[in-house]
């Protein structure tokens, strides 16, 4: 009985994970598709129906003939892994169907790839959960016509291996999948062509941007001495992100001065480089870059109103953006820019910024972890959701929900949201800030990680001022900076 209860608790904990790092929009074969976009903000409130089967524009460069040939077409994907949100182990199916023709209109590509993916969720870690997956190939049919030859996949001699791990940190899901396959083709004359591909997909998913990068090393062998023997490096990147811009209203006599719009940009890019030497290839054939960029989606954010008292204040834009993005929810009042922000309010803002699901605690509040955050407390659902997301810890203690948060506490939570505290290396490293001695030992690892990432910087004297309270203006600037980091900067190492 005891064991059953434990499993029950684990499952409910797991239910509220909001990001889970969906990958596979590009099809695991070295091509690029337009990919899925980020969820719209309005989906917080209204469910927009989505098809389980998605069809995207697709591009791939095929090297089988010995001349890199670009194909355009579509990919149809069915890889609904939502079961991983409700069960700690199990399986789901994935199918990828590609239909494409070469740019010159002469080549054709038909491919169906199907897997059953088995997974296990590991959720007994501090500040994160993990999912490991292992896919078993269930179907693979492929036929490529390029130039005057047709290559047909010999299913018997071919194998495909795909295994992944997802690291679900409080705000960001990171993933890495290793993909290795050997495809045996027969050309029209019955000559074997072996294509080996080895590489990995890695990326992350969070409310402000997502990236999936695939790196492949492809080798093609057609027998000794054949000039078609080739080695190629292919890198594909799919990136979707939200960027914000101000949309001023033209009429003077309108009830609001302007609104913020979010641009939902999505683009996929492919870079390849033929590493072996082929005298018949021109430079532009040896190195190629292609991309798919779809028109941006736009969403309008609520009007930031009653913030007139902030006009000209240094944090005006930060406040307005956060109110627009509904990250700040307190009723605006003059003077709030000078007030200290409480621990509860800061956690709530981060929950909203990271789109952490609180529905469990708004519909059926039950559990009380912190003595000073009873079910009736206005921050209850946020503190509890943050606790479930392992953003904060504690049992039976007070959370000090109404105490002003100080800088070191704010930074620690900030780094934990993006799950990169490991970069601090040791438990309590010496940080480069001149007031290092005043940083609490438990906060040093996260602050060091933030320094290495370039998101925590000292003031002009190199101080981090760990014990100082944070005003709401500073909190606005800090959280808006976090969102900006998540929109773009975090992806720097994934794009190259």
């Amino acid at each position, binding site marked *: 009985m005891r064991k059953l209860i434990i499993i029950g608790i684990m499952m409910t904990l797991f239910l509220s994970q909001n990001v889970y790092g969906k990958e596979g929009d590009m099809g695991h074969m070295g091509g690029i598709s337009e990919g899925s976009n980020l969820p719209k903000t309005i989906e917080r409130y209204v469910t927009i129906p989505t098809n389980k089967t998605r069809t995207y524009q697709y591009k791939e460069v095929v090297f089988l003939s010995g001349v890199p040939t670009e194909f355009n077409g579509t990919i149809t994907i069915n890889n609904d892994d939502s079961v991983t949100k409700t069960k700690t182990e199990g399986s789901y199916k994935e199918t990828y169907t590609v239909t494409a023709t070469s740019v010159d209109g002469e080549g054709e590509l038909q491919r169906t790839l199907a897997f059953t993916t088995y997974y296990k969720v590991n959720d007994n870690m501090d500040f994160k959960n993990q999912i490991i997956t292992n896919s078993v190939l269930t179907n693979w049919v492929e036929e490529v016509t390029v130039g005057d030859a047709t290559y047909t996949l010999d299913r018997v001699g071919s194998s495909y291996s795909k295994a992944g791990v997802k690291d679900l940190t409080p705000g960001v899901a990171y993933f890495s999948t290793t993909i290795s396959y050997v495809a045996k083709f027969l050309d029209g004359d019955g000559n074997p062509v072996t294509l080996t591909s080895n590489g990995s997909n890695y990326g992350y998913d969070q409310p402000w941007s997502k990236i999936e990068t695939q790196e492949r090393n492809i080798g093609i062998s057609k027998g000794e001495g054949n000039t078609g023997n080739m080695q190629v490096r292919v890198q594909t990147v799919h990136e979707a992100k939200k*960027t914000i811009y101000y949309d001023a209203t033209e009429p003077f006599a309108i009830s609001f001065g302007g609104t913020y719009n979010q641009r939902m940009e999505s683009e996929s890019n492919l870079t390849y480089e033929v590493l072996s030497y082929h005298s018949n290839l021109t430079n532009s054939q040896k190195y190629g870059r292609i991309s798919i960029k779809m028109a941006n989606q736009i969403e309008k954010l609520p009007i930031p109103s009653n913030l007139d008292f902030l006009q000209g204040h240094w944090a005006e834009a930060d406040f307005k953006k956060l109110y627009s993005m509904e990250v700040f929810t307190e009723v605006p009042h003059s003077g709030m820019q000078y007030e200290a922000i409480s621990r509860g309010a800061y956690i709530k803002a981060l929950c909203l910024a990271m789109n952490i699901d609180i529905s469990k605690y708004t519909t059926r509040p039950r559990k009380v972890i912190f003595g000073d955050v009873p079910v009736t407390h206005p921050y209850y659902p946020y503190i509890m959701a943050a606790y479930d997301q392992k953003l904060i810890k504690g049992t039976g203690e007070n959370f000090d929900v109404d105490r002003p948060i100080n800088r070191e506490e704010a930074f620690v939570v900030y780094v934990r949201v993006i799950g990169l505290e490991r970069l601090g290396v040791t*438990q309590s490293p*010496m*940080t480069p800030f001149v*007031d290092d001695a005043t*940083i609490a*030992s438990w906060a040093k690892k996260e602050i060091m990680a933030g320094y290495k990432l370039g998101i925590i910087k000292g003031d002009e004297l190199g101080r981090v001022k760990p014990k100082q309270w944070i005003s709401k203006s500073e909190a606005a600037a800090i959280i808006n900076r976090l969102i900006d980091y998540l929109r773009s900067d975090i992806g720097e190492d994934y794009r190259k």
Partner: protein
Amino acid sequence: MNRKRWIILLCLIYVMQSSWTSMAVTDRDILSDPVANVYKANILGQTITDNLSFSDVPVGHWAKDPITRLGALSIVKGYNENNAMRYRPNGNVSKQEALAFLLRVVGLEAAANQAAENIEVGEGEGLLSIWSKGYLQVAANNGLITQLELADGLIIDQTALDPAFNFIRSQNVSREQVAKWLVQAINIINPGSIEPIYVNNKIFTLSDWQSIDIAFVPYVEAVMQAGIMVGDANRFRPKGSLTRAEMAQVIANIDDILYETLDKTVKGGIVGSISDAGVIGSINNESKRTILIRNDEGLVDQVDLIVTSNELNKISRLDVPVLGPNGVRGLSSLREGQSIVYIVDNTTLEMEYVVIKGDIATTQVKGVLQPLADIDNGNVTIKNASGVPITYKLSVGLYNLEERQIKIGEYYRSIDNAPVSYTITLTVQNNLVTKIDQEGATPLSSEVSGIVKEVNTQFNFITIEKWDGGEVTKYFNRDQVRVEKQNYYDVEDEIGYIDEIFPDYRFDERDTGIEAIEVGDIVHLLMSSNGQYIEAISAKTNYNVKFGEIVSLVSYGAGGVNIRVNYGNGSIGTLNVDGFVPVLRSTRNIGVGNLQVGQMIKILMNQGVLAPGTIVETVKQIDVDPYGNIYARIYKGDLGYMNMATGTLSLLNTYHLTKTGWSGYNPMTDLELSGAGVEIFHNGNQISLSYADRFLRTDTMKAYVVTEKHYDRERIKKIVFEDGRDDVLASTNVSYSNGYDAIRLISTIGDIGINPGTIVLKNNHIVSTGSILSPDYAQVVLAGQGRAVIVNVIPEPNNEAISVFRGRISNIETNREVKVESHAILKDMTWIYSPIQREFTLSYDTIIKDASGIIPLSDFIDYSELSKVDEVYTIIAEGTKATHLIKNPYATEGVVGEIYSINGDNTIRIKDALVYDSTTKLWTELSLTNNYATLELLTESVIIKNNKVIDMKDLELGDRVRAMVTVDLSEQLKLTGNRQATGYILFVE
């Protein structure tokens, strides 16, 4: 700054320093733990020595502490005799003195003063000389003395009174009387806490109990049972007198009552940290010593010693009397690590008195850890060997309730994972646990882990910052220490001195020497069994990654380069890159010499924090992004619609820049605005896009837009607005550049202005003006007032590294070498014949072509029907290496001109054509009017530009080409009217 003030401040600091020998911080967490209480020092420094240093109570006097303590609290007072303070410890206490002491203890001094005033008002001045009248009145009010005794006490002339019957105030008080008064006094403020005891036990231990007056017996019993008064050598001497020293001790024995009435607290603690700071003010200079004390509850108390000098250089200090081994001193006599007891006032938050108990005694206790039921109050309980539970208080640094962690050994672990029911050893200092060790959790071999802060190979030591933040230094023997290091590029999973356990003699790339250990590395030191020396080190590079753009670069030849890198957000760092650091570009190591300004790079660096504020960074590897910041085009046009939804900017009526100037008119060009950090300039000042949108749409304003390549698209990197006509200058060398506001060109007179807005291109990168150097070869576009809007640094045309030969093949060594029996080399327009045999090497990338296309290297042989012997080839060679072998006709005629059209049918058109006359060796114009020619390019044509063979599509409009052709175009034009020839060898120059 007023020099004198400085000197004063230094003196003040010296005043403090002189009495402070530096000691290591014993309590590292004390600096980071929150300060629970800040106490004020309030006594002016001189007062302490003046009023509390009683010359007749030497250090070592048995009542030194009670006398000084009660003096500090103003309960006892001394006498000023010949400018020396004396307490007269051996003087006897009179009745009035005893009453005064006791009433002060119970907080009735103010009441006594009030009563004294009332008496003076009522009874006149006659009683003025009786200092104790107020105390007597209050004593009577509270029943310590009767009204009769009071009346006696207020008689001025006491000589008339009979000691047997009357109350004589100056008479020595008896010890039994003190006992009674004590009990009564305590009952005034604390009724019931001590009662006269009528069942006698204690007094029967006395040999003189029978001499106690029967009325006093219950009181003597009470004070003896409470331990307030004790006899000496089995005697109480009830009728004997009490010395002032004894009185002080008696009062000290009831100090809990004293502190309660006065709202004071006695605390114990350890001095954890002492730090000094000075402030120079406009009037006062202040020097402050902050003392942090770890109190018995594990919390941190702070008190500040403040020394101030005012404008008259008068020094005043706010201090606390500190009784130490050298007598009564101030706070400056405290040392880190001392155990102290101190009294604080809870109302005023002043620290009033400190006693140094000596250096901390450290004890270790061993026991079985009990469940952490009271961890919330910082308590842990262990059961000792006899099964007795003992509870200890933890120092706050050992546990963290917020994180639910407890520190066992060097590491924090979750409270849920505390080693309950395991044997642990507690290190106890001053009743406070400062360290918890678990048996067995201490590794068998002693390892120390952390991050390297210093490696000294001269004195053979290594200093590391341990996992939890502490710092240790360990020594090694250079010749014997074994070092294994996993470098950042090693991805092997066998790490460290595992060779220890599984001896293995195969190649191990991690075996290295102590020199390989760098500051910032993560190391695990295996200590010798006696803990003295490092036996082995297992290390790993602790690297950090940064991204940026090289903004400037200084080369030191083989020594490497110094680069300035813009990390984005305008933050700029300077890095030294050693000559051996790998520089990777698409997985190939291109060397430090190929770093260029404008490259986007990813830097892997080893980063060590030497001290807060001091970081050492060592570059380990640089990855050059081959596609980052590569310029695509420069456009000129009028500002069109800015579409924020798609993130595009339309330019109207656009041209783009070519070698010959602006060309490629387009009514509308859409450009992507999605890249990060697009910069917009007007008149050298950076502006916003909205500003441009509002103000820069004038009739004459032109936008110059430079784009960078982004996959198969391009996107905007920089926009510059300039007013009026521009002028594209012919490419030429830069003769001078100061890098920020002026350059000079060889072909023009006077300075050309540049500014931060100027678009500068170099090595195909978009760079800043600082990268323009003399003698760069550049195309400059001027926009009014001699100001450059574009400086496009391009490679100077040069084909000198390539030689062109023709020769008849005599011998081929397949894949290796080709021999020609004689050859001709092309010099300008002339083939110079030489009968000498010549050899050229072949390699896999030698391209061999004839009219039908590429000949595989495997078909380039000197036997069978494929034999190429005796055929004549044009050979393009770099040194002795043949890069191209082309079978094409002997082209001896020539034509030069500038490309103005490149056509789809493999022809180009050139204007201003000059034809070479091979007989006269002169260039003449093809025709005097409408001077153009058409050149056809075939498969076997070869085009050479900047020492490289290029494709036809790499030709640009404006390129000046020299073509070797087979016909004399002038003749052909005259005879047939045809202006077309086949170009076999083309040089772009």
